[in-house]
């Protein structure tokens, strides 16, 4: 699992530019899936037909990033955010673009504090427009932050762990359930960071009987932590509500039963600031039973995050158990 997380987190996949990680993920399920495809919005979808009700497992593969929107005569770039990244998070950091170009996000001379992206520019070391245009183009996506560090006590930190961890969990759960002969689909969703834009299209196409979404959620066992009541290392959380969903009680019962059967202590997520794919899927067509299972992270939503591998393992077990419990 850890190897998969590290491998997936190495991919650069700002929202809307998920192309490369899509291939990695679909390659990883190709051998066991009946069919795989990428849809119009960039979701990567694999299905294995089998017994029981059709369950869709979803995890977003995109991450917040930036996109080049202007190149000036002197070869400097301007960028806009994709997803919820703020100017203060982006300023003074290295940016790595999907085409291999790297740059430094700088604040215009004379500006005191980065508050808006209009104050920022990206220096890629180009001497003039022509050189810049050979290494960057309008629409080029990039991300901030560095690779994954293994802290050594079962915890990892680094860029894009939220939600490559979820992708790794979904990937493993899909393989395990497919091997057990269940009727299961996995969707690695695109464009979650700008507002859960793509998940609904996949749910519309698949029409599952149940969807389970895996995503990161901020733990508040940190100085000043007030956002949630969650603790890192205390196990997976059931999503009671976020900005896009309120869980039906029947779904809550399903996840609680699965946790009880495993002897897992469940945490409960109440996070009005978050917006996962869960709500978008829930409101598809006539309504779809949708559950969110979250693993706690420190600093979710920002470019980098810290996770606990014990939470990751427990989230995987809970997910598999919940699918097996469903429809019994």
């Amino acid at each position, binding site marked *: 699992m850890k190897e998969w997380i590290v491998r997936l987190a190495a991919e650069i996949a700002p929202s809307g530019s998920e192309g490369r990680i899509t291939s990695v993920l679909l390659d990883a399920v190709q051998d066991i899936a009946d069919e795989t495809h990428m849809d119009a919005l960039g979701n990567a979808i694999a299905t294995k037909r089998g017994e029981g009700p059709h369950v869709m497992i979803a995890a977003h593969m995109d991450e917040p990033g930036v996109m080049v929107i202007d190149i000036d005569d002197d070869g400097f770039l301007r960028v806009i955010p994709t997803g919820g990244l703020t100017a203060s998070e982006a300023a003074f950091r290295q940016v790595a673009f999907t085409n291999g170009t790297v740059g430094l996000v700088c604040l215009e001379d004379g500006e005191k504090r980065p508050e808006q992206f209009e104050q920022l520019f990206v220096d890629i070391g180009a001497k003039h427009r022509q050189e810049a245009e050979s290494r960057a183009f309008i629409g080029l996506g990039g991300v901030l932050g560095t690779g994954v560090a293994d802290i050594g006590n079962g915890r990892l930190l680094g860029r894009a762990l939220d939600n490559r961890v979820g992708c790794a969990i979904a990937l493993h759960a899909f393989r395990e359930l497919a091997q057990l002969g269940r009727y299961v689909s996995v969707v690695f969703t695109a464009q979650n960071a700008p507002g859960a834009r793509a998940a609904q299209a996949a749910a519309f196409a698949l029409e599952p009987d149940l969807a389970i979404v895996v995503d990161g959620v901020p733990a508040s066992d940190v100085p000043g932590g007030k956002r949630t009541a969650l603790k890192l290392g205390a196990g997976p959380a059931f999503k009671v*509500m976020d900005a896009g969903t*309120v869980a039906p009680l029947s779904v809550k019962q399903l996840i609680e039963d699965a946790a009880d059967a495993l002897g897992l202590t469940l945490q409960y997520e109440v996070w009005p600031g978050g917006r996962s794919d869960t709500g978008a899927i*829930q409101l598809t067509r006539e*309504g779809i039973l949708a559950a969110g299972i979250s693993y706690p992270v420190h600093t979710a939503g920002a470019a980098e995050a810290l996770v606990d591998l014990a939470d990751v393992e427990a989230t995987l077990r809970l997910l598999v158990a919940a699918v097996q419990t469903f429809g019994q």
Partner: protein
Amino acid sequence: MENHQPLLEQLMTTHAGPGFEGAVRDVIVPHLRSYAQAVQVDVMGNVVAQVAGCGEGRRPRVLLAAHMDEIALVVARIEAGGFLRVVQTGGFDPRTLVGQEVVVHARGGDLLAVVGSKPPHLTAPEERGKAAPLSDLYLDLAMPESAVRERVRIGDRVTLSRDVYLLRNRRLAGKSLDNRASIAILLETLHRLQQLIHQADVYAVATVQEEVGLRGAQTVGFAVQPDVAIAIDVTFGAFPGQAADESFALDAGPAISFGPNLHRKVFQRLVDVAERHRIPYQIELSQTPVGADANAFQVAGPGLAAALVGIPIRYMHTSVETGSYADIEQCARLLAHYIAELDMAQVEDLSCY
């Protein structure tokens, strides 16, 4: 039964916030069954009751919807001392919550709590002039932290606690008149329809999760895809200090909404029906998509002809929402006559521009 006012009073003291509408659903389903041939509950928890029209061939299909959820709170953290921090599902004015009695719907049963805030003598002078945000308020269960932790879990839902007060002139006050008043309208309409001959197949729907973004309406609108979808929801009762076009008199009949996202022919027909049957009515103008289920209905699936009617209430989103049962009856008369007069020619005309 004379009318549904006793039921309304029961509904106003029943607790059901977004995502946990079960208690209200359980109360209304038997009443819907007394009028409908079939009553179903969908994945989201919407209740759909079908009342068949008469006549052969294609009949008009009309959906009448009232949301059954009320604004509610959710336990987000348990603090030292056993005090609860909450977040909201639906828009509260936190100023109205201070000192409010609430019910925490815990696994082992309902618990009473009082909403507290920092007392004045501990508040800095500059803070005293300001209202406390919801994040500064807490719920006091008056029990030790250990007992709280045993009984209450993160994610437990919280609703307002308030008896119903019967005021003068058939006006009643309490919590969740938004939108239990419209559930009463729904039932009063079905009651009146029994005395009328109607071609239209009626889908009487109690929707869920309106207060968090018209969510139940989105899915039930897609599922039923009626010819006409009418949302029934409350609007602003006249009160000093409000703009004239956002104020509707109590006892002056239902407000019929007009605006870009509502079907103008359905609007016009509702007005005509009111005029012909001498039903008092008021017109509400909306420049933006309305903040009611009709908004979601209009863009469900291929697009639906949407309308919005409802009674005015004062003090919306507080525990003393006040409205008039006379308005409820007039609104039901309007809807019953509209449905009775709906025919296929009108339905076909809805797409003619």
